[in-house]
């Protein structure tokens, strides 16, 4: 059928000196010679592609080796469902591409056209799913470099940065963990970062274990008589002076646990930032007495019922963190610095892969046109085979990108 057509249209011009497809070039001995030459060429191209992508894998592995925490945190943002569906789509298209080669080799023109169409449809499906993923990420600010919005909420649990008015907004991705407690409610438990502060880099070790993590409202039941009187006085003053006063000096009593200052707190100062830009934010400065030589840990509840009063502030027993609170704290932790690098790598790798899929569509449309024209036969199916090999390589790269970029746990 198709061969007859070709013999009619081409054979007069070419005169191959051998039987078979008119697409066999003069300078090849036979169809097999031409096929093998093309196949060697496409394999060199594929190896070049492997080397090309390996640069990106170097970037990925290097960054993961040094900043694993970013990848661990990234699981908040991953679209596993779409990634898995896309993997299935690509595997299906690989099947249809391999089947297209079989059809071409066996002179099955209709089957060949069908397989190429299925491959093209799968490629469009893949890119459509990529579009859904990308547009969601654009919408949420889960982007590369400075475009990354650290305040983006990847799941149901709002990030702590939201509560903190998101100080590391958009352009800055380095958070100040001591940026101040929630502006509206005043100092809250757990707002300030724990940590050992190595204050003097020239002296080895931790000089002061001043973990400022337990600043919280005084518990009703644990208020001392003096503290309660102070609070009442404050409330009365607030009532007398109206809301304006309350804004400047809300009535609360700070509790600083004993772990904050092992040697007992020195002075505690409540700071308020009233600049227009930042709104009303609260900070707490705690000054510790000099740390004594390490002693056995004191019973945290030893003075549970009679907090030590320091000036106008209260010192209360430490808050014991429960498992749920710990999980919640972990989940609501803001992204670590440079989380934007994950998205730089994500977009570089999936973007380049997506471009390959797009190029593959052009190649398969070209194949579709040629197969409709009936160019391919059992003697001449090289372009189908080479294109399918390219398509399988695109699938291969995705096979690695999928676990590396979507299945981080």
């Amino acid at each position, binding site marked *: 059928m198709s061969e007859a057509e070709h013999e009619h249209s081409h054979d007069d011009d070419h005169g191959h000196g051998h039987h078979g497809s008119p697409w066999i070039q003069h300078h090849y001995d036979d169809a097999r010679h031409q096929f093998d030459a093309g196949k060697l060429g496409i394999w060199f191209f594929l*190896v070049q592609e492997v080397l090309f992508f390996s640069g990106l894998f*170097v970037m990925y592995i290097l960054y993961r080796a040094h900043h694993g925490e970013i990848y661990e945190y990234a699981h908040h943002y991953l679209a596993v469902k779409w990634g898995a569906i896309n993997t299935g789509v690509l595997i299906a298209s690989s099947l249809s591409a*391999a089947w297209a080669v079989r059809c071409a080799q066996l002179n099955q023109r209709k089957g060949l056209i069908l397989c190429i169409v299925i491959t093209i449809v799968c490629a469009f499906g893949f890119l459509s799913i990529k579009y859904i993923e990308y547009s969601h990420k654009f919408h949420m600010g889960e982007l590369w470099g400075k475009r990354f919005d650290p305040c983006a909420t990847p799941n149901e649990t709002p990030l702590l940065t939201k509560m903190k008015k998101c100080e590391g907004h958009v352009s800055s991705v380095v958070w100040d963990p001591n940026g101040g407690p929630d502006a509206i409610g005043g100092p809250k438990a757990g707002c300030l970062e724990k940590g050992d502060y190595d204050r003097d880099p020239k002296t080895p070790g931790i000089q002061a274990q001043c973990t400022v993590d337990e600043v919280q409202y005084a518990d009703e039941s644990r208020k001392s008589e003096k503290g309660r009187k102070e609070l009442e006085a404050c409330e009365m003053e607030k009532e007398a002076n109206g809301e304006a006063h309350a804004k400047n000096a809300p009535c609360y009593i700070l509790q600083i646990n004993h772990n904050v200052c092992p040697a007992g707190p020195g002075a505690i100062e409540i700071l308020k930032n009233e600049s227009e830009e930042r709104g009303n934010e609260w900070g707490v400065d705690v000054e510790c007495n000099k740390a004594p030589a390490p002693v056995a840990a004191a019973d945290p509840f030893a003075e549970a019922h009679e907090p030590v009063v320091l000036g106008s502030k209260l010192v209360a027993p430490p808050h014991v963190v429960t498992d749920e609170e710990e999980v919640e704290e972990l989940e609501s932790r803001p992204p670590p610095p440079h989380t934007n690098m994950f998205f730089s790598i994500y977009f570089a790798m999936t973007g380049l892969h997506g471009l390959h899929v797009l190029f593959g569509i052009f190649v398969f449309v070209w194949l579709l046109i040629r197969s409709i024209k009936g160019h391919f036969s059992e003697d001449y199916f090289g372009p189908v085979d080479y294109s399918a090999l390219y398509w399988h390589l695109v699938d291969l790269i995705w096979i690695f990108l999928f676990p590396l970029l979507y*299945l981080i746990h």
Partner: protein
Amino acid sequence: MATEHHDDAHDHGIAHVATKRTLLTNWAVLTVLTILTVSATKIDMGPSANLGLAMAIAVLKATLVCLFFMHLRYDKLFHSVLLVGGILAGALFVGFTLMDTGQYQETNIWDPNSPPQAPNAPRPIVNQ
């Protein structure tokens, strides 16, 4: 024409023809492995074990694609040598790059008497 005759042929003169069974089996195994790798993330075995399993499945899938979809099993050995050579070159890139990157980290402590501050350490707000 010759379709009937060729239907289950393994070699038709120019190149190997994959059988329907090979193609379908390969596709089914690849799909099952994809489901397996997604399900494996729900089991927490520690980050490195999870990553190791995911990569092992990925390597297996890649091998299946190479051997059967890309015909490497029936193809000239030289094409496999080319591909493996490319992958080895990629491994060299990674290896050589990873070898000395630690040298540029600020956390290298040369003098134990003056350890540098950790990068991105919280601003100390507690005064002694």
